[in-house]
């Protein structure tokens, strides 16, 4: 893939370079593992401080500051500390971690080893979804290579520090991406998320020991923070939104794919980098950060105050593409999985598709989530198959409201937010369905194909 001039690549810098392979030789020829060699000569706490100062925020979904998360780890319990790399990558719309694992696995391993050294971890895991069998194999081979060179295992780089990495394969359940569900799964159980408190992973994680769970992309950044220094890293992007981000763009654009950028607007990504909508199409809406995020509607204005007191008035295309920019527009950048919906897409059909997903993936522990997601699937499904009822819109909102905030894990919000935001912004379209698909021009085949919910 050619690199667009508006991209600014750190993580994927070499991954798409001609001749670059996942082998350790490729990585080392580009300075690979130099930062691990440096790290093991440093004070662990000073690495944590660097990561804190860099402002790095988690790339897995919630955007929590990485260094702060590390500083919560209970270091006094006397129990071993574990680190888990979250490579479940199952948020619909997201496909960035796959690129890193397939094309530059050693960068992840180096990032993990730096993070493990900083946090006094002797055993780390990579939890990878079952649907990436090649990725799991590539990681296994890369770990072997790294062991042979003394970067993983006993006496890392001759420093006396030892740490092992184990690759663990999931079995096709989305909820394993939720950090406590992941921990349960790694313990050999159903991936039922745990109640926080008391089960904050930093204190009671894997085997009830202090545990760090970080996303693949987050961990890779540790290498670049050491390389550039916290200040150098923090210069990239905007304050509080430091570093680059890999955006995954899918749906109605000319050049879908993954792009690594810093400090660009949503319009620059979608129009300049991705080539804008398909010929003859218009963008209708954008789901900014994976399918659980609230939808943004084309044509809306977003108004508010900047931290410095100045005011903004943005259209969709003006939104700064980072955590705070998208939050200011009322959504979240989540996992960076951007789905572009053009004017061929029926919003109720898109919702029906996602509700089929969420009802399938609910772990079933909480009644509001388990029952509510199934109801929402059934309502949206019959709606797009021509059997809507007048009360459906209100019923859906009522169900969504009763899920949000009443569940053990954030999956509840992931079900409710699409329902609430799609109806808030496209209520007329839903009401039209409630009038029994009164639109004579409705392309029912396309609607069924989009819903794709059996």
């Amino acid at each position, binding site marked *: 893939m050619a690199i667009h001039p508006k991209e600014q690549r750190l993580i994927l810098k070499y991954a798409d370079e001609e001749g670059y392979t996942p082998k350790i030789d490729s990585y080392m020829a580009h300075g690979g593992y130099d930062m691990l060699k440096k790290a093991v000569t440093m004070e662990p706490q000073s690495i944590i401080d660097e990561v804190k100062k860099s402002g790095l925020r988690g790339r897995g979904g919630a955007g929590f500051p990485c260094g702060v998360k590390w500083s919560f780890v209970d270091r006094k319990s006397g129990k071993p500390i574990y680190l888990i790399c979250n490579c479940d990558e199952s948020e619909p719309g*997201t496909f960035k971690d796959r690129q890193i694992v397939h094309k530059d696995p050693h960068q992840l391993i180096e990032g993990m080893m730096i993070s493990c050294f900083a946090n006094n971890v002797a055993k780390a895991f990579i939890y990878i979804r079952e*649907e990436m069998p090649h990725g799991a194999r590539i990681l296994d081979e890369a770990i072997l290579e790294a062991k042979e060179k003394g970067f993983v295992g006993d006496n890392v780089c001759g420093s006396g520090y030892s740490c092992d990495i184990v690759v663990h*394969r999931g079995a096709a359940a989305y909820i394993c991406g939720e950090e406590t569900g992941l921990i349960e799964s*790694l313990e*050999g159980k159903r991936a039922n998320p745990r109640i926080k408190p008391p089960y904050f992973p930093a204190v009671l994680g894997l085997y009830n020991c202090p545990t760090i769970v970080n996303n693949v992309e987050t961990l890779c950044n540790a290498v670049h923070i050491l390389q550039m220094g916290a200040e150098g890293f923090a210069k990239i992007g905007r304050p509080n939104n430091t570093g680059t981000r890999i955006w995954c763009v*899918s749906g109605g654009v000319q050049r879908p794919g993954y792009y690594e950028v810093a400090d660009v607007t949503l319009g620059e990504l979608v129009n300049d980098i991705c080539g804008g909508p398909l010929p003859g199409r218009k963008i209708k809406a954008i789901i900014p950060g994976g399918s659980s995020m609230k939808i943004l509607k084309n044509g809306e204005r977003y108004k508010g105050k900047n931290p410095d007191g100045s005011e903004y008035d943005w259209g969709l295309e003006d939104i700064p593409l980072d955590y705070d920019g998208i939050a200011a527009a009322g959504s979240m950048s989540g996992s960076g999985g951007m789905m572009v919906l053009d004017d061929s897409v029926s919003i109720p059909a898109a919702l029906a598709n996602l509700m089929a997903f969420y009802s399938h993936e609910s772990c079933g522990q909480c009644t509001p989530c388990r029952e509510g997601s199934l109801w929402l699937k059934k309502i949206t499904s019959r709606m797009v198959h021509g059997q809507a009822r007048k009360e459906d819109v209100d019923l859906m909102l009522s169900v969504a409201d009763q899920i949000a905030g009443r569940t053990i894990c954030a999956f509840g919000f992931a079900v409710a937010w699409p329902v609430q935001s799609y109806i808030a912004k496209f209520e007329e379209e839903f009401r039209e369905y409630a009038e029994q698909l009164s639109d004579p021009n409705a392309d029912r085949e396309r609607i069924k*194909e989009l819903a*794709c919910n059996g």
Partner: protein
Amino acid sequence: MNLKPETLAEIEAAIPKYPDPRSAVMPLLHAIQKDQGLLTNEAAEWVAKKLGIEPINVLSVITFYPFFRQHKIGKRHIRVCRTLSCAMAGGAKVCDTMLKEFETELNEVSPDGEVTVEFAECLASCGSAPVMLVDEELHENLDVAKAKALCEKIKAEAKA
């Protein structure tokens, strides 16, 4: 249980990787399902004994994770992504093509025993939608013509 020597070797290698043997449940189930094609009650009991846990602990894992199965499927496992990005790009048509070409229904074993076609949720390749997994191989940027060609290939491989 009649497991292949390489499966047994994989199992022996997996257990000591974890601080608690129970964590090896999923790796063991993966290995056995690959060997046997499915997970029987006998397999659950075998795994439970091996790891020093109760059979119900193993069964609860088997029944929770969609990839683990207690029924037979076709020789090839075809999983077509149905989630939104793939649906927008025509995933449903691709799935229909697979079903038609193998004269089968969703989630069934095709009459010739060759394939089972299923829907899968987002396969983390939405930028090259629509996509499907055939066993361990990902196929991207599909359309009806490509799906048909793939069916031909699978049929040819079955004859070979």
